[in-house]
């Protein structure tokens, strides 16, 4: 169990966020009501997605500086897991939006920005599929990945803050200011974020290992 501690930590942290997320009292706000508890489940999806995409960027840069195929595998698999988490984030966000903002999809800058960046990463996967030669594929994908990451930061983190948005933290509102989240909420929210990042990393880890075995059998 020595090297599995971080997987167990992830499970424990998310379990804690489920118990705490349902039971610990939250600020009573109009419109949001109890849905403020979605903060513990919807937002960690995005944090985990962005963490995995950053991990992917790191491996793409590593690949370009040494052309070791293992870095390419890591970059590719973490983008795939990140996209799954992003889909969960979109779906949960749509349900949340329907019952608080009144529509499954609004023309909110953050929503459209997120959709664009997810399409950018979908293009990353399609681009990979379209190149036969393994080394060429890895090189082109790594360069594209850097571009995609910058677009993602631009569309999710920067542009929404320059415009009016329904999301907290945009149009001048601090997302993590005292108006939106009190200190008890932080005690559940941050462990949830760390827990989901670890779960995402774990799934990526399993996928990378499967891919490696697959490669060994393919080239054996």
């Amino acid at each position, binding site marked *: 169990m020595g090297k*599995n501690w971080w997987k167990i930590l992830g499970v424990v942290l998310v379990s804690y966020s489920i118990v705490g997320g349902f*039971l610990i009292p939250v600020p009573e706000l109009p419109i949001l009501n109890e849905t403020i508890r979605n903060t513990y489940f919807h937002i960690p999806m995005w944090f985990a997605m962005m963490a995995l995409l950053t991990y992917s960027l790191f491996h793409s840069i590593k690949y370009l500086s040494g052309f070791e195929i293992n870095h390419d595998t890591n970059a590719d698999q973490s983008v795939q897991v990140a996209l799954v988490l992003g889909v969960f984030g979109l779906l949960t966000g749509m349900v949340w939006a329907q019952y608080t903002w009144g529509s499954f999809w609004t023309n909110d800058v953050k929503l459209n920005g997120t959709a664009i960046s997810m399409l950018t990463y979908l293009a990353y996967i399609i681009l990979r599929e379209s190149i036969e030669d393994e080394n060429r594929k890895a090189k082109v994908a790594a360069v594209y990945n850097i571009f995609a990451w910058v677009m993602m930061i631009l569309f999710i983190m920067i542009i929404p803050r320059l415009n009016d948005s329904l999301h907290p933290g945009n149009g001048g509102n601090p997302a993590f200011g005292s108006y939106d989240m009190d200190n008890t909420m932080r005690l559940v929210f941050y462990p949830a974020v760390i827990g989901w990042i670890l779960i995402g990393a774990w799934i990526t880890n*399993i996928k990378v290992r499967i891919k*490696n*075995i697959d490669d060994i059998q393919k080239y054996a």
Partner: protein
Amino acid sequence: MLRNSSFFLTAALVLIMNGLSAQGVDMAAGMRSEGKIYVVVIVVLIIFIGLAIYLFSIDKKVNKLEKKNPK
């Protein structure tokens, strides 16, 4: 006579049961309090921990495959 006694017995039982529920006898009511939200928490926990155990078993299988296919 028999009918009468069974009637009284039933009546007594109903009365006792009524009395019990009306008095609010102390029971292990943890899972029934606060609108039974604890039940939902347990259900979600079962699903999540179940998925985690499943992930662990996949992890183990990959481990075995790695040993079969050394680099």
